[in-house]
């Protein structure tokens, strides 16, 4: 077990190293190449260009630049924004909790609904419940997230005026975040107004993003439950006098949960991809919005750091999911 974890950790670092190299070198090939941008910004004055290149360290060989970049990353220095010269890690530190809050809430909503619908659809196979569950799952994975977001704003923010249309917290609220997780901060500071306001801002984006997750989880759960319900041990459980409901919940479901842990990583990829879009729709100040904004103003170090952090989170979650999978399944653990 310990060997597996060590092995997986080494593999994770190798992948992270490759990921950082891809991002670093790829971005220098395109229109984001900082040298090209400098030439533009200094209107071609050779002396200014040389000065700026030296300032940003662009006069060194690219391999050296990459080495320095890696050394910086290892120390938590992800570079400085071209816009305001502030460390990009500061912007990321501000934005990351927002994305994590959104992702956790969406994952919670998505898995609860998805598991429920998947189990019901499998238990009542070929009834209207099954058809309904399958249709809802299809909607979740096929409807464009950005459109669901805008329709959500149109209905709940503009027409009904129940929920805010965007942002993370109302501007009237005077509030200093401590951890950056607003709902948690509100609880810690005993500010119910903050909790309720932050929650209202979080609700619509996470329902929209949660639908995507729910679609995937419903499909996987239904398939796994159908397989599990057909097993001999479920029939045995019923023969021993368990009600069919009890046999399904106590005997079939625990075994069906295992395949679901395997898609945990995939699900988190969906959440991060979806966060980029949902945050753009709801002007929700998280990592995805940071990335999209940085691309539109061509803030090269910010783009580089944002993609690196998003990919690193994904790699980390996948590694943890792999370990959890092995821990939770003795068959995998022993082989």
């Amino acid at each position: 077990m310990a060997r597996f974890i060590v092995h997986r950790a080494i593999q994770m670092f190798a992948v992270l190293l490759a990921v950082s190299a891809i991002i670093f070198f790829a971005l220098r090939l395109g229109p984001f190449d900082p040298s090209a941008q400098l030439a533009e910004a200094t209107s071609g004055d050779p002396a200014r260009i040389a000065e700026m290149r030296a300032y940003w360290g662009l006069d060194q060989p690219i391999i050296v630049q990459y080495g320095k970049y890696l050394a910086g990353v290892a120390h938590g220095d992800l570079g400085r924004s071209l816009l305001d010269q502030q460390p990009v890690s500061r912007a990321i530190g501000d934005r990351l909790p927002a994305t994590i809050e959104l992702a956790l809430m969406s994952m919670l909503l998505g898995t609860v609904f998805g598991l429920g619908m998947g189990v019901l659809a499998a238990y009542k196979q070929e009834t209207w419940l099954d058809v309904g569950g399958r249709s809802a799952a299809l909607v979740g994975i096929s409807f464009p997230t950005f459109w669901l977001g805008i329709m959500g704003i149109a209905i709940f923010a503009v027409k009904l005026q129940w929920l805010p249309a965007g942002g993370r917290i109302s501007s009237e609220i005077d509030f200093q975040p401590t951890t950056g997780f607003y709902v948690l901060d509100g609880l810690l500071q005993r500010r119910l107004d903050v909790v309720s306001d932050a929650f209202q801002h979080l609700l619509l984006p996470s329902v929209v993003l949660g639908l995507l997750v729910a679609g995937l989880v419903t499909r996987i759960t239904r398939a796994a439950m159908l397989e599990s319900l057909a097993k001999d041990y479920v029939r045995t459980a019923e023969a021993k006098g368990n009600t069919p409901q009890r046999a399904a919940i106590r005997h079939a479901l625990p075994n069906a949960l295992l395949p679901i842990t395997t898609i945990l990583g995939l699900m988190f990829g969906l959440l991060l991809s979806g966060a980029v879009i949902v945050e753009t729709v709801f002007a929700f100040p998280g990592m995805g919005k940071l990335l999209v904004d940085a691309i539109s103003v061509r803030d090269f170090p910010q783009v580089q750091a944002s993609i690196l952090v998003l990919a690193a989170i994904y790699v980390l979650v996948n590694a943890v999911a792999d370990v959890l999978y092995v821990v939770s399944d003795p068959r995998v653990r022993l082989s």
Partner: protein
Amino acid sequence: MLRRMLPRPVRRALGDPVTAVAGSIVALIILAAIAAPLLTPYDPAAQDPLHPLESPSWSHPFGTDQFGRDILTRLLYGARISLVVGFGSVALALVLGLILGILSGYYRSFADVMIMRSMDVALAFPLIIFATLVVVVLGPSLPTVIFAVGISLVPLFTRLARSMILSLREQEFFEAAVSTGCTDARMMRHHVLPHVFPLLFVQATTAIGLAILSGAALSFIGIGVQPPAADWGRMVSEFAPLVFVHPFLSFYPGLTIAITAVACNLLGDGLLRAFDPTATRVIT
């Protein structure tokens, strides 16, 4: 008549009413994309500053946008972009994935390790974020979007092709063919491709919906197909700032994407089921 021309699994799939309806919708969208100039008298990019944001009428059934362009016309022409992105990127992923899968699963050795490790690295990026990186590097345009979405799907197809070839290797006919001295080319033509390609192809059809959605998402965040091209995702993003004044403007372009993606997903699922009832969808 027409039905007879279709391969048997396709005919069997179309026997299922849901799949048949989904197939007809996809066919209709393809038809609309091809015949767009015949179906509407307007030019999708022609602005009419005198008639912006008109309500639906006989001359503009879905109304006009903020530049006075006919929304229905733009939806019809937008089908071209979405379909080209959907089919183009999946075709690219299928071909590249098949080649890499063969190199990896058939020839094994060093290529296998190299290819599978690079696929692991590619899969270390969430799909849209990988596609975003590609578009940022190459600059936003229609070919780039196709390339970006296609490339992000390649690892899934490579893994699938590789695992299919690896299980073929275990079969007796494969061993027999190798032992009778088949050349690599002959192995490919007679023993590998006939087994791998059909299932890979059917799996690919289930990815078209995802590819269309991804392309639309890139357009929505502003790094996809550039204006004034009529693109569905772009239309939703152009209408988004107007949500407080005209809340339901983005209803039609978004619904069009949704219907297309649902139809493609149902058709793909139906084909997969008819082709191999035990196969599960690999690409979600």
